[in-house]
Structures are given as C-alpha cells and as structure tokens.
C-alpha cells in the first residue's frame, strides 16, 4: 500500500481480484443471512462496485483516514477490517467492530482510521473536512479519503464541504461512486448537470471522471491523486462511473430500471473483466482461480461461524460509550 506507482505484476493483480471476490462473496452471503434473519435492519450491498473500494484503498497508507457511506461493507473489507468483526457487527454481537451498536450502516475501526459507515447522505463530507483540517494543523502528511454516492452531490453539505476543502487546501481525496441511481432516482431526474466531476472542478480542484468498473484505472487514478495531495496540492476529486447490480437495499423491488440494463452492466462488471483479462493473457489458471475462491469461501465461513457463536452485549451495558468518563489527556 501507499506507493505512487502501480505495479502491474501478476501477484498484485491476483491480490486485487481476491479482494474484489472477498467483497462480492461476502455480500452474496449477506443476502442468505438476511433471509435467515441473522442480519436485520437496512442492508445495502456493494455488488458491482468492488473495483472502487479495492482500487482506492491501494493508494492509502495505514494512518490515512477513510469515511464512507451506509454501503460500506466493501470499503471496510478493503480497508482491512477483519471479516469476522464486520460480520459480528451485522449479527449485532458484542465483538462486532461497533460493539453491536452500529450494524451494517455504521462500521467503525479507529485503529484503521475507518470513521464509518454514515447513514446520512452527505453526512460524512464535513467530517472529512475536519479530519483533514486537523491533519494540516498538526502538520501530518496524511490523506483523508471520503467516499460517497452521486446522490450526495445534490445536498448542501456536499457544496459546503468542497468549498471549505479547496478554500483551505485540505488533503482530501473525494471519491464519488456514481452508480447512476440514488435509491430509485436516476441521475437525469436528480441533477441539473450530470457531469459531476465538473461540479468539483468549479470549486477549483483537480477533478476527473474514470471508469469505476476497472480496478486498475481506479488504483492508478487514486495513487496519482494521493501523491499530488501529499505534496500539498489540496483536495482532488474522482468521479467513478459504476453500477450496482442489486437493489438499493433488501427492500428494493427495482421498479425504476429495466432488467436488460442490469444485465448489460453485469457484462462490464469489475470481476468478470479482470478475470477475463487475466485468463486471456495467461495470467490466471483455473486452478489458481479456484484456490482464490476457496480461500475466500473459507474466510467467509469462518466469519459467519464466529459471528453466530459470539455473545451479545448485556443490556445493562446500554449506556456504555454514551459519554466518555475520563478526561482526555
């Protein structure tokens, strides 16, 4: 992690594929767990968008900060949160990464500087501004990476935050996951100008649109942006064009789009594309792919079993963590 240049060797490509597969298979397992009522609440899956989380995380160092949305399982997994702690959280268990208080939409890990999981559209953007401000004030050469959907662009907080970020030249990498729908509202119905990267450019920051279905493109763009940010170039903005293969949440009947559209996008999916390219170019054998898949499945199985067996927080602890008791040092 953290190198400016990307190393397109076989090993790295296998690694990227595996990370995407971890997310995809995890999400698919969540669907069954949801119907088994092991997971409750809102559940937003990331299928189709894996290349963004995986690509972007390659550009970040251990102590950079990450903020994401309610569709953040993929970001959390790619960031390095253990699958077990994420699964336990979704099961509402004490060992979950948020102690069972957050659930699917509020995954946190302060050691990995993963600051959510935020279920308010655009709610994390001002926080990213503040985290980056704190880094700048304390002369830390860190990047704050803030990931959000194109739906957030219509909120005032998006514009307030971009303005502040550029005004104060803050080290923020804005990643817009433009999957063309905000719940069931298509981009054309929602945005006066559908070229979202231009909105960011209008604030004077470097901004671009890329193919969010290609993990290499995402990694390359994120690395270049991060290295510019680390050199003091201020905020950068990347609009990633992508598509979510499943509904907005488990309750979505998808009346707003055609099946044919979904199927067409699935052919462009990040995992099929990379797998296809690797096999075409003799960089991935069937045996290797199966080994990766087996690894992933074992990891998921282990996470599910552990989460299932984990204990729940006693109700008596409900007030724990409402307020900190000890004065901070």
């Amino acid at each position: 992690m953290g190198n400016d240049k990307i190393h397109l060797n076989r090993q790295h490509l296998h690694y990227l594929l595996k990370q995407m597969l971890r997310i995809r298979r995890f999400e698919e397992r969540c669907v069954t767990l949801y119907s088994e009522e092991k997971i409750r609440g809102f559940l937003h899956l990331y299928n189709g968008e894996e290349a963004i989380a995986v690509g972007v995380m390659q550009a970040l160092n251990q102590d950079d900060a990450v903020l994401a949305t309610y569709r953040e399982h993929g970001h959390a997994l790619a960031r390095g949160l253990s699958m077990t702690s994420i699964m336990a959280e979704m099961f509402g268990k004490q060992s979950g990464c948020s102690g069972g208080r957050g659930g699917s939409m509020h995954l946190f890990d302060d050691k990995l500087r993963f600051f959510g999981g935020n279920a308010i559209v655009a709610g994390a953007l001002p926080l990213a501004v503040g985290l980056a401000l704190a880094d700048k004030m304390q002369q830390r050469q860190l990047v704050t990476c803030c990931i959000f959907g194109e739906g957030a662009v219509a909120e005032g907080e998006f514009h307030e935050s971009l303005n502040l970020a550029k005004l104060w030249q803050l080290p923020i990498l804005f990643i817009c996951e433009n999957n063309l729908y905000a719940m069931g509202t298509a981009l054309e119905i929602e945005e006066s100008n559908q070229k979202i990267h231009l909105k960011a450019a209008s604030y004077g920051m470097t901004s671009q649109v890329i193919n969010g279905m290609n993990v290499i493109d995402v990694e390359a763009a994120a690395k270049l942006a991060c290295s510019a940010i680390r050199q003091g170039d201020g905020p950068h903005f990347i609009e990633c064009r992508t598509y979510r293969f499943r509904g907005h949440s488990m309750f979505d009947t998808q009346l707003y789009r055609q099946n044919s559209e979904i199927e067409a996008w699935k052919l462009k999916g990040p995992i099929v594309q990379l797998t296809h390219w690797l096999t075409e170019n003799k960089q991935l054998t069937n045996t290797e792919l199966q080994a990766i898949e087996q690894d992933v499945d074992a990891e998921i199985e282990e996470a599910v079993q552990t989460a299932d067996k984990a204990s729940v927080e006693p109700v008596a602890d409900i007030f724990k963590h409402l307020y900190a008791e000890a004065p901070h040092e």
Partner: protein
Amino acid sequence: MSEVTFREAFKAAIVEALNDDPRVFLMGEDVGHYGGCYAVSKGLIDQFGTQRIIDTPLSESGFVGAGIGAAMGGMLPIVEVMTVNFSLLALDQIINNAATLRHMSAGQIAVPLVIRMACGAGKQLAAQHSHSFEGFYAHVPGLKVLYPGTIADARYMLKMALADPNPVIIFEHVMLYNQSAELAENNDIAPMEKAVIRKTGSDLSIITWGGCLYKAVAAAEQLQEQGFSIEVVDLRCLRPLDRETIIDSVQRTHKALIVDESWKSVGMSAEISATIAEQAFWYLDAPIRRVCSIEVPFPYAGHLEQACIPQIEQIVAVALEMLTTAIPSEQVTL
C-alpha cells in the same frame, strides 16, 4: 475583586484556552477579522493569527461538521455559531454525528468539541434571531448542554467544557454580554454538571438557568422584602440534568416555580415539571407553576417582544399566588 462584563469573561476564557493548549482553535463566521458578531473574539486574530482564529464561510453544516471532524482528528475546536437559530442548519451534524459517533462506534471515536452559540431575546431582532433552543439540544443524549448565568460560570465553564471529552454546547444569552459583575480571581466553581443554589430559602424554589437567572434572583429579593424566603436553583447544565438538586430543593421548600425563556409546550420546563411530579409529588404544597415565553415567534416591536418573555414582575406575581394560596387563581394556558 473587579467588575467585568460577561463579554470580557467569555473572551478571557477563550484566550486562556488558546494559551493553554495548542490544540485549541476558534472557528466560525466572522470570529476573526470582524471581531465576532457580539465582539466576544474582538482582537483575537491579531493576537493568535489566522491559523487559530478561523473565519469560515456561511456554511453552518460544513464548519460545524468540520469542527466535529477536527475533534475526531485530535484537535480541540471551539466552534462559534452566531445565533442559535442558525445552528438549525447544522442540526444534522450536531445530532446525527457529534451526539452519536461515540456510542455508535462503541467508544472508538471521541468528539471533544465545544460549540458556543449566542441566543435569547431582548434586542428586538425578531423571530429568526431571538429564540431559545437549548431545550432542543438538551433533548439529545450524547450532547452536554451548558448555560452560564453568572459571571464566574461565563469565565470558567469553557475550561471545563474543553476538558470534557464529549461534545459540549454552551449558550450565551445576548442580553448578558454587557452586564457586569464582580469576578473573583481563580474562582472555585462547581463542576459544570452540578446545579447550584444561588440563593437559599425555605418557602418556594424558583428553578431557572442562563438568561433568566438574574430575573429570578431579582424576583426572589423582592419577595424577600415582603417576608418570603425564596430559593433560587440555577441549573447551569441542561443535559445531563442535575435532578437531585432540583428534587432536594423542592423537598425543602415544597413549592416549585420554573422560569424558562423558551416556550412552555414540550419544552425544558415541561421536563423539569415532570421530574418534580415523578420524584417529589408528595412533597408539594402547591401545583407546580411555570413562567415561560408566550407561544409565538418573537416579534420585532420592543413592547411585543418584552411581552413574550418572562419578566421579574410576572415571576413575583406567580410566586405570590403560590405562596398565599395553594390553588392558582387563574389557570391560563398560553
């Protein structure tokens, strides 16, 4: 002892905080070059520079959220929101983020932030600049809500708020800024979450806070001249609420009168009434009474504005009714 204004006290507290800890900075609209909307931070930008006295654009949600993020990132921000009314644009950040992040992350995320806001009526600023919304914030677990009503609290509460590892909101009543009072050096004041008895008495408890405190004390003094012994309880902190001190006082005086500059319905005074009814009902010798603001958006015209908010004469009149008869002569619901 020397006389200082509330404005000077608030300012001295900020200066002390900036001098004491390099992580502290002040951020808000017009806090720097303009000198602060109510001149609290006048001159600080010359003393501390633009890195620590930060003028923000008009983006309440943006800069309050940035304050939360900066607190998460290891700083100790003091965010000023010009007027409590404008903080409604930042409600999302304050309630959905500042108040929830620690609990939702099982204690992993700390938000050691202080938000200061001017509030209150009396300057004929009409409905969009005069309201008292401390009760809104006091409604929310995860926040702490302070409202200094004495010069010592104005001077020293910020220090306690900054030492507290949680998001703390401090209200500053605009009519107090110019008031002055004696301030002892190194004042030893009660912990910020404790209610304080400002005047002891045995016949009736007036329970109030912030901008109404001096009115309650003045009313108590007038009643004293008429031979009644009135206790004045200054809540100081509306969340967490020091219910013990309220109940304790009412158990001694047997009568409770609440004075609140906000509206009566569904407000802070209702919460205090309910607390007394739940925990001290059998000690009461008279129905609980409340002097609150009239339930309209506060008007501009001076006489109308004054008619809206609690006045000393009104407090005295209601107290006298309670002291002379157990049954209120009129039960007007405004």
